[in-house]
């Protein structure tokens, strides 16, 4: 089989699987899983058989080529996406089993995976933009999957609209870029781009990857089913922005690169701070994703895109693991409330606790993935995060004193990260079960379709798969991302590594003291329902970012209403006035025409007629009138003779 056929097979099989599931044979998700498994298998084959980039190009419009490519980066990302998507499919077979819309669900999931494959394979900027939009559409459909639930449609709409705003910037950037450079094939990009296209494309990527001004939609996206969140956060949606930045980073304008680094640092800090106070299990993970995406964008901004893509890879594993573990917990609580327990807010961490014995596989995989997220040595997250922090340090060394803020923020965020994940861990799994769990004494064990994905993802978060040396900061995965290298380590970097380890461990220890079973803060925390201070409320609500979007939207709405009013009153009024003025003027002209022009003509006619009438009397038939005229004529002649 030729490679082209294999590529098309990888691309379309998730879509075909979803279509079969939805329309032909309504099973429980087995067929889509088989098809996505096929994609995964072919991706694995492609990883080994692809030496040089493969191109497929075709004529879209007359003498306008678009095409897809399969290079090293694309193969490894295909592998990642298909693997995560496969696990999510398998997990969903159990998680969504009782949902009436399960067929629709798998179709959307297949469509989502297909769009992401297309995005990775696209070689042309416009084709990439098409798949970029398809990914946005698919995420909208999946976030709004439970569209009858209160708040879900508006959450989906917000995710969609925030993405649209950024996508407009991306589209404008692509158009501007195509005016500057000869070819917008990704494999043929060149040169140093101007400021504006660079900036617009970066903003487009920020929107997809939930960077700071656009972060709000990602927490809203939690309204979707949890496996979908795993897919969005790990491999598909948010990875798209980082992927685009990786592709274009060598060509971006220098100041835009600095801006990317700053935005990444701000986002990392923002996500880390907000994640610390969340009660909702999924929201905490969402803010964690924002923070980690901030790391990746920061890495790209400081010029080591390869390290960022490696972090994307490891993050995909441990974040998908965390989300699927969250899904497992939520599933467990749903089972409880269906089997006689009372209805529970199944995502509130304050009501959990003591799940260690109930869900052992979830417990272990959450622990491993959490440690990977925290950046503890012997786990994957440590290796990739070290790469980014070291790169930012080297970059700051070249830039100057103020630039050291960036690695400082990265290190601070490392502390926050380990704190919030430690807090989640202690709240969920340790201690005595709080409230509702005591009341229900049912037997529950995790299904194989839940256990296996969790096991695989947890295993993928260990260090051995990336580098035998647990203290390294590069791995074999880095060789697939050849844009932007990771700097070599030295004595200084070893010191920083030690600091990072210390901070990560310190965060967990701090979390332990605050939230260990029986701690005083834990008791007050689980009984108190609201944050007290203004700062606390700000942090809890993610600095009101989503609310500010709504405010912005409302302001725009009010502004347009005012504009509409002005339009009606002032512009319409002016036009009306103008029209009336024209009519009045026309009437005046008409009057002038009638009175003066016609009047003159009529006057001359009347004068002529008057004289004509008078002189017509001369030839009157009445003899006496003739006599009168005769007499008048005589008098006139006489007068003439006498007086002149």
């Amino acid at each position, binding site marked *: 089989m030729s490679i082209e056929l294999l590529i098309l097979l990888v691309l379309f099989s998730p879509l075909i699987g979803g279509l079969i599931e939805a329309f032909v044979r309504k099973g429980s998700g087995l067929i889509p899983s088989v098809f996505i498994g096929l994609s995964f298998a072919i991706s694995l084959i492609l990883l080994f058989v692809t030496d040089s980039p493969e191109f497929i190009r075709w004529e879209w419009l007359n003498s306008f080529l678009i095409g897809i490519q399969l290079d090293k980066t694309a193969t490894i990302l295909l592998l990642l996406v298909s693997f995560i998507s496969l696990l999510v499919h398998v997990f969903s077979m159990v998680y969504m089993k009782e949902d009436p819309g399960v067929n629709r669900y798998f179709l959307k999931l297949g469509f989502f995976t297909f769009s992401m494959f297309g995005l990775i394979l696209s070689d042309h900027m416009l084709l990439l933009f098409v798949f970029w939009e398809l990914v946005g559409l698919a995420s909208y459909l999946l976030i709004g999957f439970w569209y009858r639930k209160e708040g879900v449609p508006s959450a989906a709409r917000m995710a969609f609209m925030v993405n649209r705003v950024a996508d407009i910037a991306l589209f404008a950037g692509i158009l501007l870029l195509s005016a500057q450079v000869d070819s917008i094939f990704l494999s043929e990009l060149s040169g140093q781009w101007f400021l504006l296209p660079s900036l617009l494309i970066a903003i487009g990527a920020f929107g997809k990857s939930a960077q700071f001004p656009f972060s709000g939609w990602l927490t809203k996206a939690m309204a979707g089913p949890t496996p979908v969140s795993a897919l969005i956060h790990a491999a598909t949606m948010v990875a798209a922005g980082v992927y685009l930045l990786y592709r274009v980073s060598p060509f971006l304008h220098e100041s835009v690169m600095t801006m990317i680094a700053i935005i990444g640092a701000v986002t990392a800090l923002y996500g880390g701070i907000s994640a610390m106070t969340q009660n909702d299990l999924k929201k905490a993970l969402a803010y964690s994703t924002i923070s980690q995406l901030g790391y990746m964008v920061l890495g790209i901004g400081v010029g080591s895109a390869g390290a960022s893509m490696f972090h994307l890879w490891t993050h995909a594993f441990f974040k998908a693991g965390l989300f699927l573990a969250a899904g497992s917990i939520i599933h467990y609580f749903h089972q409880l409330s269906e089997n006689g327990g009372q209805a529970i807010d199944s995502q509130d961490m304050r009501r959990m606790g003591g799940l260690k014995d109930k869900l052992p596989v979830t417990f272990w995989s959450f622990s491993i993935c959490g440690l990977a997220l925290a950046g503890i040595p012997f786990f994957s997250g440590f290796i990739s995060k070290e790469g980014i922090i070291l790169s930012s340090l080297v970059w700051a060394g070249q830039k100057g004193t103020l630039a050291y803020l960036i690695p400082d923020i990265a290190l601070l965020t490392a502390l926050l990260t380990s704190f919030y994940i430690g807090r989640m861990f202690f709240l969920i799994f340790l201690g005595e079960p709080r409230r509702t769990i005591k009341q229900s004494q049912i037997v529950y064990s995790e299904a194989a379709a839940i256990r296996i994905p969790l096991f695989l993802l947890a295993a993928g978060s260990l260090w051995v798969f990336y580098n035998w040396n647990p203290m390294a900061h590069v791995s074999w995965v880095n060789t697939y991302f050849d844009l932007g290298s990771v700097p070599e380590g030295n004595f200084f970097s070893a010191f920083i590594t030690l600091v990072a380890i210390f901070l990560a461990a310190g965060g967990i220890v701090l979390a332990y003291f605050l939230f260990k079973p029986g701690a005083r803060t834990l008791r007050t925390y689980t009984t108190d329902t609201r944050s007290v201070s203004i700062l606390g409320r700000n942090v809890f609500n993610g600095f009101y970012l989503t609310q500010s979007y709504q405010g912005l939207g409302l302001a725009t709405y009010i502004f347009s209403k005012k504009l509409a009013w002005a339009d009606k009153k002032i512009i319409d009024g002016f036009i009306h006035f103008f029209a009336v003025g024209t009519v009045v003027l026309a009437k005046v002209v008409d009057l002038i025409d009638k009175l003066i022009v016609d009047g003159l003509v009529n006057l001359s006619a009347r004068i002529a007629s008057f004289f004509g009438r008078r002189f017509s009397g001369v030839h009157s*038939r*009445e003899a*006496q009138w003739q006599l009168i005229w005769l007499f008048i004529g005589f008098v006139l002649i006489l007068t003439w003779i006498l007086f002149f």
Partner: protein
Amino acid sequence: MSEIGLHMYLCLAALLFSSGLFVVLSKRNAVFVLIGIELMLNGANLVLASFSQIDLNGQIFAIFSVVLTVCEVAIALAILLNVYKKYATSDLDDLQEIGNG
């Protein structure tokens, strides 16, 4: 008794002439028009007679004129009588036909 000035006679003559002219122009009846013509002639005769204060030739001319007027009136009245007989009207406005009908 003081002598009456020439201009008094002339004014009277003008009055007579004007009255005659007015009658000729304003009256519809042919008999009145004939009477108007007589008045105008008498006005003219009066002018001729009044100038006899200076020269007597005027008086002679006035007598000739009176004779002529008599002849003229006799003929005109005869014509009018025939017209009236033929058309049963003496109104000038109705007499608009020309010919020997």
